[in-house]
């Protein structure tokens, strides 16, 4: 087009510089490309700087405990002995438990809002679901202390103990506070994230697919199952990862209900502890360089766990999206 020939006098004398640095034909594109690249680079640099800072901060603990840090269960600041296994277990278990509750609910909400709900209902319900995401986590925590935990203690846990008490999952003292309460709080907190992203993903499914399935005589359920969900699979997994990310990093609310005890127990009634919680709880009062270093190493581990889970999830998205579309889910 004429644009490429219409070189303005402003850049003519410097066009050599431009061609030297890149493919851009004018300064506008040059500045635009470099600025956006710089902004993207800043984020990468921030990530790298944080990783480096945590690695530096945890050097003392890394050299003292080595691999024992991730396999030991003792966390005793009085004796300067630190092992993070219960925190790693608590973080992963509570997040996965939260996903078990949140994914089915979120998918249901998203399918209802995008496929089945009457148009007048979609706006208000969608708005209310997203409103849950705007509630500060300390409010969830207080609700957990004053409403959820007592309800679990008096109603849910006795019921589970009576009916499913033969499983190790549902044994032990019923206190309300513990892994179950933590998982439920996290599930409530990540449901709006997963459901609103899933809804957008489902909305992006071309209506031709839906109409085609319905036209072939599929019921609404069959249309969703055969045509819509397979098309949206990778997006739905992505939405779940987003929720998982929030669950892993959540600190305040889960600290208030999980019981904060560095123990590994098979029971969902037992107290547990997460990596984010131990940092939040102990950092402000931590004195002594090994103690601070151990807390920094917990931060580093949280970072590593988050990155690893994200890589696994990304591989999952990649694998799911490379499957042939349609058919089974």
């Amino acid at each position, binding site marked *: 087009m004429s644009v490429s020939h219409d070189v303005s006098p402003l850049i003519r004398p410097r066009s050599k510089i431009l061609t030297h640095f890149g493919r851009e034909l004018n300064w506008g594109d040059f500045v635009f490309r470099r600025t956006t690249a710089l902004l993207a680079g800043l984020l990468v640099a921030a990530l790298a700087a944080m990783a480096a800072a945590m690695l530096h901060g945890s050097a003392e603990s890394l050299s003292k405990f080595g691999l024992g840090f991730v396999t030991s269960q003792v966390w005793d*600041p009085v004796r300067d002995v630190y092992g993070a296994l219960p925190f790693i277990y608590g973080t992963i278990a509570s997040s996965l438990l939260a996903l078990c509750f949140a994914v089915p609910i979120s998918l249901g909400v998203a399918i209802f809002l995008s496929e089945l709900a009457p148009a007048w209902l979609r706006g208000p319900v969608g708005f209310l679901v997203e409103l849950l995401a705007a509630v500060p986590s300390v409010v969830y925590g207080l609700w957990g202390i004053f409403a959820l935990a007592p309800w679990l203690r008096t109603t849910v846990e006795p019921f589970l103990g009576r009916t499913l008490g033969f499983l190790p999952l549902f044994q032990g003292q019923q206190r309300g506070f513990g892994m179950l309460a933590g998982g439920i709080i996290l599930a409530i907190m990540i449901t709006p994230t997963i459901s609103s992203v899933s809804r957008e993903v489902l909305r992006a499914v071309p209506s031709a697919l839906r109409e085609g399935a319905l036209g072939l005589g599929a019921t609404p359920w069959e249309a969703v199952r055969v045509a819509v969900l397979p098309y949206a699979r990778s997006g739905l997994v992505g939405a779940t990862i987003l929720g998982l990310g929030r669950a892993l990093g959540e600190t305040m609310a889960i600290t208030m209900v999980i019981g904060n005890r560095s123990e590994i127990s098979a029971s969902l009634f037992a107290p547990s502890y997460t990596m984010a919680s131990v940092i939040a709880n102990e950092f402000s009062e931590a004195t002594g360089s090994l103690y601070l270093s151990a807390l920094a190493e917990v931060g580093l581990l949280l970072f590593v766990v988050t990155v690893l889970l994200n890589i696994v999830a990304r591989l999952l998205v990649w694998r799911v999206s490379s499957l042939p579309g349609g058919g089974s889910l």
Partner: protein
Amino acid sequence: MFARRSLLVGLLLTVVACKGNQPAPAPAASDATSIVKKDEAVSLTGAGATFPYPLYSKWISEYNKLNPDVKINYQSIGSGGGIRQITASTVDFGATDAPMKEDEAKQAPGKLLHIPATIGAVVVAYNLPEVSGTLKLTPEVLVDIYAGKIRKWNDPKLKADNADAKLPAKDISVVYRTDGSGTTAVFTDYLAKVSPEWKEKVGVGKVVNWPTGLGAKGNEGVTGQLKTTPYTIGYIERAYASQNKLPMAELKNKSGKFVAPSIEAMSAAADAVEVPDQLFVSLSNADGEAVYPITSYSYLLVYEDAKDAVKGQALAKYVWWGLHDGQKFSKDLDYAPIPAKVLVKVEARLKELRSGDKKLLSGA
């Protein structure tokens, strides 16, 4: 994409947020009459213990009414944070419940004075719907409950001192503070004093490896569990128990008397213990019939030699005011005032505060 992007944005925000922790800018000079002799607008920042925060914030607002030119900002980030910040000189004064350890003091660029500013108590609160009277606890029973050796409320050892109370055959649900806190340090200091076994196996600290129980975050977290869960026992600052109307156990003191955590019993503990020249001392398990045994000073941390004479003088005058006029706010906020004989010693040290060769409180 979303996950990674939001993670990155979050990290960046964290980095930015960490840099935003600057002291407030000095306010413009006001033309109101000031009793500070050099009337320049001064802004002081402090950070540290959460335990005396209600009292300190009362002091700050009252002092600001009298001296509009002095703006004071206190951040209750915890004793450990207070020690770190005053050591790094990012604040003008620190505050801590547990005195600084020797190796902590060595890291400071100058000599830090501990100024006992108020007296508080850690109480043992409980939730026993069946029991209307006050629970009586001996040190041995308290240690055994927290060590996980006494597990039922109707344990014979508990019954021995509470013959009138109908103690239920329920499991004791033990609650402890999970976040590092001076409250835990004071409580475990007491447990270690009354039980050599506790001292050896668990020890004293702001965070310890509890043999049993559930961890709750902050005084408010422990209070929340105590209020909502029957058959729990937990330790909290007195103010939280009295404001939430939680029953507080009477503890058997060194003289063998069961004493409730009253302001008078806290003052009795302070009267019973001689304060050494370094101005910090543990008040737990003090001698005396009227003494409540889990009592503690809370300290302000101030550099003896102030780098900035104007700020140093303003701070010295504020501390002086807090230790005199400020003490009258103690009782309403569940603290005990500093006893007169301790105040004499503190006054002598405050008069030694200086900036270079210049004494800061010459006119006081």
